[in-house]
């Protein structure tokens, strides 16, 4: 049996989900897919007791379109397609929907979640379908804590319960025996079968609890507000905490809500009473040196089993009972917590999503419809461009009996009208890419290269351009003989800003930098469905590469004297980059004191324009070309 089932805090929390309809939306941070599966299996068993209908698990991911989720017109003579959400389904089943990664959900699915998660009533008004129903669902979603900034808070706010999955430290070294034990613990076995996860005693307890009524003294309810920031209001969080406390009381069979239920709910959610938090902040400021020493200790990563029970060496007779590396942070009942870190990281996360991410995308280049973006739906069309064949045919089929009633003979052709035409509705296409090759060793302190770069960054922001930054000779290079590439969805991603602030290393693997640039451009313009329309390639370099291409590729220098090889290799690679048609290349010339003609030679090799970067004193070299 999986160790998760001995995690009392977790079981209790999932039981509360089964008892309280208002808690049936759970967000788990940093859980592996197998962990989510496990949680889903446990939920399925628990909900089976209280839902009153068979529980059916489903999954939403990055590919769902509106038609897949909500259905469309059925083919003549055929049963209607079983759409995911409908009045019929809702009447015969309780849905347990798992979202493995909320950050990469398709826009259609994200919009669907906005409509459904926590909804009182659902309306389906699509393709002649008209249905209204009260949803019977439970939602279980996973996402990486680091990706929270990519998700709309409008969507995140709908998840009532938050959990944080503590995984093993990937850098931790395990003994061979422990690795074998972990492997055995992860091998799929029938303990994931729903009917074997939780004990009959537990299920009976939930059944009894589901009939328990709990009185709510206002004075005890008022304790809930102690756990939310003063002077601000987060209605859904307060309500979730209160419902959780009530459900805990219900689960315990208590006829009244007590303060300890509120405290337990807050502890499980990782919330601290605001007065306590302020005191902790004050004491932390005083005791900071002491705290630094203790930071080496592992945080509240308490395992499912008490320390004493965890075997230090593998006992082959008890292999299945060895502590699983993946555990919800929860020890014994008294100090357990589901979320040892802030359960609402979206409050402080850096925004990495587009503005209005749930709105249907607009096409920035209005003079021509993009046929490049991912398909996110279907819409009516007046032209034959980007035709959605199946939807067009389905649209025509509705009228065939009427249109073809006069057709004689056995062979009947489908009669189309212009009004049947349907085209793909596409998401944002990769319209533009800004690629920057930054040679850190060539920009000195008295060169205003960042000011020169600013207009291009501003334009990239306006164009919603994807960013590719090629770091040549950066101080943080993992291998100083190699350039590195940083890709970002847009200019506001923090990694780009951080990279632009780096200092200079010692080596200048310029040839490798151009080599990476060429590979990336080839991928952007020749590979896959989502191809870029155009790119701007900015090169900030003095042209003095001092690492031959071969040395970069092998990550070692064989010769003692390099001579001009680094420069020649860089120029040769630059020529290979120049062949791309839809790339506008600009060399930003830092006006080097040594070999001042090299940037111009580089620009010629690239087929690029050249722009002078003024020195900090505003000096420009006379006769500089543009």
């Amino acid at each position: 049996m999986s160790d998760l089932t001995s995690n009392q805090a977790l079981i209790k929390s999932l039981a509360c989900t089964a008892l309280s309809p208002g808690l049936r939306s759970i967000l788990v941070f940093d859980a592996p897919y197998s962990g989510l599966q496990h949680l889903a299996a446990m939920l399925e068993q628990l909900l089976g007791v209280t839902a009153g209908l068979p529980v059916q698990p489903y999954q939403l991911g990055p590919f769902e379109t509106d038609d897949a989720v909500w259905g469309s017109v059925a083919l003549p003579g055929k049963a209607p397609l079983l759409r995911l959400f409908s009045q019929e389904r809702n009447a015969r089943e309780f849905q347990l929907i798992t979202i493995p990664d909320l950050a990469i959900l398709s826009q259609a699915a994200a919009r669907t979640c906005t409509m459904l998660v926590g909804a009182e009533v659902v309306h389906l008004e699509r393709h002649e379908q008209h249905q209204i129903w009260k949803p019977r669902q439970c939602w279980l979603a996973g996402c990486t804590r680091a990706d929270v900034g990519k998700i709309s808070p409008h969507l995140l706010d709908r998840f009532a319960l938050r959990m944080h999955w503590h995984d093993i430290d990937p850098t931790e070294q395990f003994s061979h025996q422990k690795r074998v034990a972990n492997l055995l613990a992860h091998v799929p076995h029938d303990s994931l079968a729903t009917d074997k996860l939780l004990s009959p005693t537990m299920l009976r307890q939930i059944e009894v609890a589901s009939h328990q009524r709990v009185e709510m003294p206002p004075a005890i309810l008022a304790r809930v507000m102690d756990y939310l920031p003063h002077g601000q209001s987060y209605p859904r969080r307060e309500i979730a905490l209160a419902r959780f406390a009530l459900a805990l009381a219900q689960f315990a069979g208590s006829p009244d809500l007590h303060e300890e239920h509120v405290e337990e709910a807050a502890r499980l959610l990782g919330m601290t009473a605001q007065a306590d938090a302020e005191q902790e902040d004050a004491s932390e400021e005083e005791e900071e040196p002491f705290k630094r020493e203790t930071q080496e200790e592992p945080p509240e990563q308490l395992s499912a089993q008490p320390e004493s029970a965890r075997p230090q060496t593998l006992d082959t007779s008890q292999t299945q009972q060895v502590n699983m590396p993946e555990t919800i942070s929860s020890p014994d009942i008294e100090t357990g917590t589901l979320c040892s870190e802030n359960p609402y990281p979206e409050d402080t996360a850096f925004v990495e999503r587009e503005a209005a991410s749930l709105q249907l995308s607009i096409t920035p280049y209005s003079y021509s419809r993009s046929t490049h973006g991912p398909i996110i739906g279907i819409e009516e069309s007046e032209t034959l461009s980007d035709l959605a064949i199946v939807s067009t045919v389905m649209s025509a089929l509705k009228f065939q009996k009427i249109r073809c009633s006069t057709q004689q003979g056995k062979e009947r052709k489908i009669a189309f009208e212009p009004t049947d035409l349907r085209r793909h509705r596409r998401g944002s296409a990769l319209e533009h890419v800004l690629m920057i090759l930054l040679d850190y060793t060539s920009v000195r302190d008295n060169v205003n290269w960042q000011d020169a770069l600013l207009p291009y960054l501003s334009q990239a922001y306006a164009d919603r351009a994807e960013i590719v930054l090629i770091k040549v000779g950066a101080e943080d290079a993992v291998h100083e003989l190699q350039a590195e590439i940083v890709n970002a969805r847009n200019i506001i991603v923090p990694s780009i800003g951080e990279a632009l602030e780096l200092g200079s290393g010692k080596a200048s693997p310029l040839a490798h930098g151009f080599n990476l640039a060429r590979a990336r451009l080839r991928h952007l313009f020749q590979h896959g469905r989502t191809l870029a329309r155009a790119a701007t390639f900015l090169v900030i370099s003095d042209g003095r590469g001092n690492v031959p291409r071969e040395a970069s590729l092998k990550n070692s220098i064989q010769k003692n004297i390099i001579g001009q090889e680094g420069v020649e290799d860089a120029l040769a690679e630059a020529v290979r980059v120049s062949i791309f048609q839809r790339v506008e290349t600009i060399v930003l010339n830092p006006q080097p004191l040594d070999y001042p003609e090299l940037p111009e030679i580089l620009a010629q090799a690239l087929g690029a324009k050249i722009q002078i970067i003024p020195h900090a004193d505003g000096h420009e070299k006379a006769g500089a070309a543009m």
Partner: protein
Amino acid sequence: MADDQDEQELLRTILPYTSIVGQEKLKLALELAYIAPRIGGVLISGKRGTAKSTTVRAFASMMYKRLPVTIPINATEDRVVGGWDVKQLLESALVEQRGLLEEAHENLLYVDEVNLLDDHIVNIILDVISTGKLIIQREGRNAQREVKTIFVGTMNPEEGGLRPQLQDRFGLMVNVEADAGYENRLRILETVLAFDRALQEEEDKQTSPFLVQGREADERYQVEIADAQQRFYGVKLETETADKCVKLAQAFQIEGHRGDYLLALASCAYAARLNDSRATFEHLKSVAELVLRHRLLIAHQLSNAVWGEEEEQRVLEILGYV
């Protein structure tokens, strides 16, 4: 169409309007739009979890005894405008299926997350709301219907703004904020949990005192609002008040004359609500923000219109209170 039994069951899951804590401006806006339908609708803007949708459904449930006609964000044109019954069509029978706009005639038309709605659908709604006529010319249908409706939209401005053309179509706009006051927060919590329990009791076929009292209070309140609607055309707009309507619109640089008209309408509606026979400066003072906020020039550039102490002070000055 969802049959009557299903809809009645769904209505029972709606929190009684009179049980909603706070949100007085929001409630006022809905009531004014009901009393004077020519106001043209209410846009409710506010952050998540501020009971926007709950209040609209509760109001519709109280006044119309049914759920509002709702256009979800993924609605397709055929359902909004109307089409053919597909099952009948496949059997060569032409049977019309009413669209949502047609169903919204003499009802409340509701769009939740209106800023996420497809632009194409928005255009259709714009056209119908402004003309009061639904023209159906698609799939071989050629028909025209009258549509008189109260259009209510809710939105979270964090998810993007509304096109100025659509924003202007709403007669009134309310900016809803989460109540940070301790007492109200506690009352909200108590109400939500009491409602949770009441729903469970009804599901167990028991009588819930909370719901019984709430529904009875709603019945009484519904009569008050309906009576106010009857009184509306008897309310007199004083010349001085009309003068102030124009001055307010000019002072806030509202384009066109629609602002003047709406200020007058809203003042009269509020007077009717309070059982007053004349619309005075007091009524105008209370409704000014609802009418003017989303019509300010700056509102067209921001996803969230700004109305603060400065604007309030200006209203008071123009009305002669300071």
